[in-house]
């Protein structure tokens, strides 16, 4: 078994080391969502390193703490690519590494519209002990998590996940709707899910002075997400559904904090999920790496 420190500390280590040795961070303007995506991509050449946790209650079993590290890179202004490493600790059970994901978001339209589509493609290699709840799809229900880590990790899952992200910004509000279609490549049916989000900065005008606690640095909102069954049984029956207020704090130092208490909306859902995350954006990462390999000065 992997100790919790071996999974949790690398995330902090990466963030800390890169923060110390890399040039000035960008002032992040992160949306507060954990599950939903909006149409804004990472700025080209920037790398954002993020560490997130989900604490979940489990009826009839042990509560858990799942965590993941994300490396989000703006390859171009219309393509963002992201790599995840996931793990979890189930209390009174064990800590396990649960897999990795590679996601890509592509913006097909050149200009801003009232509704802005983004195409999302993700490949996941994980085991059955994965509990990060980064998305809810198909007939994912709370009782799936009763299996012990030792048993669950024997299941290997290779999954493709597609999303259509439709996002709008109106009078400072962001509204986003994500439709999820996921396919376990081991001959399972397509599964579906959704995520909805709305958020707004606490102030729309920027302050004329640098400040850490100015209201424009805080973005509050709410997200709702859940499964929609699979191709044989589409709908809300035997699915889990969640509603979660969200809050992000974008600090001038380049750090961003996010927190979200989530509440299950039906008997199939975890009663409570507490998510939190810390991230830091590093500007010009692509150029720096390019220079290492003899690129343009």
């Amino acid at each position, binding site marked *: 078994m992997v100790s919790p420190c071996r999974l949790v500390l690398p995330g902090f280590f990466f963030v800390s080391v890169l923060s110390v040795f890399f040039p000035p961070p*960008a*002032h992040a*303007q992160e*949306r507060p969502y954990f599950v939903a995506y*909006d*149409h*804004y*991509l990472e*700025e*080209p*050449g920037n790398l954002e390193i993020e560490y997130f946790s989900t604490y979940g209650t489990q009826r009839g079993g042990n509560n858990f703490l799942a965590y993941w590290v994300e*490396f989000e*890179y*703006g*390859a*171009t*202004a*219309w*393509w963002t*690519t992201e*790599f995840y*490493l996931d793990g979890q600790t189930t209390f009174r059970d064990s800590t396990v*590494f649960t*897999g*990795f994901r*590679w996601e890509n978001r592509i*913006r097909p339209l*050149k*200009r*801003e519209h009232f509704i802005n589509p983004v195409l999302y493609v993700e490949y996941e*290699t994980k*085991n059955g002990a994965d509990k990060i709840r980064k998305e809810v799809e198909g007939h994912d229900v709370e009782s799936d998590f009763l299996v012990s880590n030792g048993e669950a990790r024997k299941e290997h899952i290779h999954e493709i996940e597609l999303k259509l992200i439709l996002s709008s*910004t109106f*009078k*400072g509000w962001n509204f986003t709707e994500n439709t999820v279609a996921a396919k376990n490549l081991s001959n399972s049916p397509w599964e579906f899910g959704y995520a909805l989000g709305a958020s707004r*900065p606490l102030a*729309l*005008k*920027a*302050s*004329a*002075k*640098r400040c850490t606690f100015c209201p*424009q640095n805080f973005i509050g909102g709410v997200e709702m997400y859940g499964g929609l069954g699979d191709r044989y049984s589409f709908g809300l029956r035997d699915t889990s559904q969640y509603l979660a207020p969200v809050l992000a704090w974008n600090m*001038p130092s380049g750090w961003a904090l996010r927190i979200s208490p989530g509440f299950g909306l039906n008997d199939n859902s975890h009663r409570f999920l507490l998510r939190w995350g810390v991230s830091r954006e590093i*500007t*010009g990462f*692509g*150029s720096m*790496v*390019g220079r290492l390999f003899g*690129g*343009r*000065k």
Partner: protein
Amino acid sequence: MKAMAAALAVCTSFIGVSVVLAQSQTSDKTPVGAAPKYDPAIYAELQKAPEKARKRANPLQNDPDAVAAGGILFGQHCAECHGDAARGGTKAPSLRAAEVQGATPGAIFWVLTNGVVRKGMPVWSKLPEPQRWQLVRYIKSLGGTVPAGDSPVTKP
């Protein structure tokens, strides 16, 4: 351990590919050591603003704090590419050029909102509208000193 090794291999590969792509997108034909020049056509984006957008007046035109706030926003979001003094950087052109300074506030706001996605400038509608207008005030306050196509490229 196999999964971890595979994860690290994929991580390394994707960062490598992404960096190569990012480099190729921003690279030009300028020899190493010489100052890269920008295609003056980049400024033509301002001319693509629809008439209605071009005619929009800045609602913060008389806001005494708008330039200072815009300057802070510029430092946080724009200076990385356009240079600390907006004289142009390795990735983006000068905003002191006559084409920018001669453009209407509405046209600059339109470019900020829509980005020039295919040429590397992201969409900035993630900033609330008043903040984009504060940025416009700051950009217009810089005054025109450098002709387009002769953009200084080194960060001050």
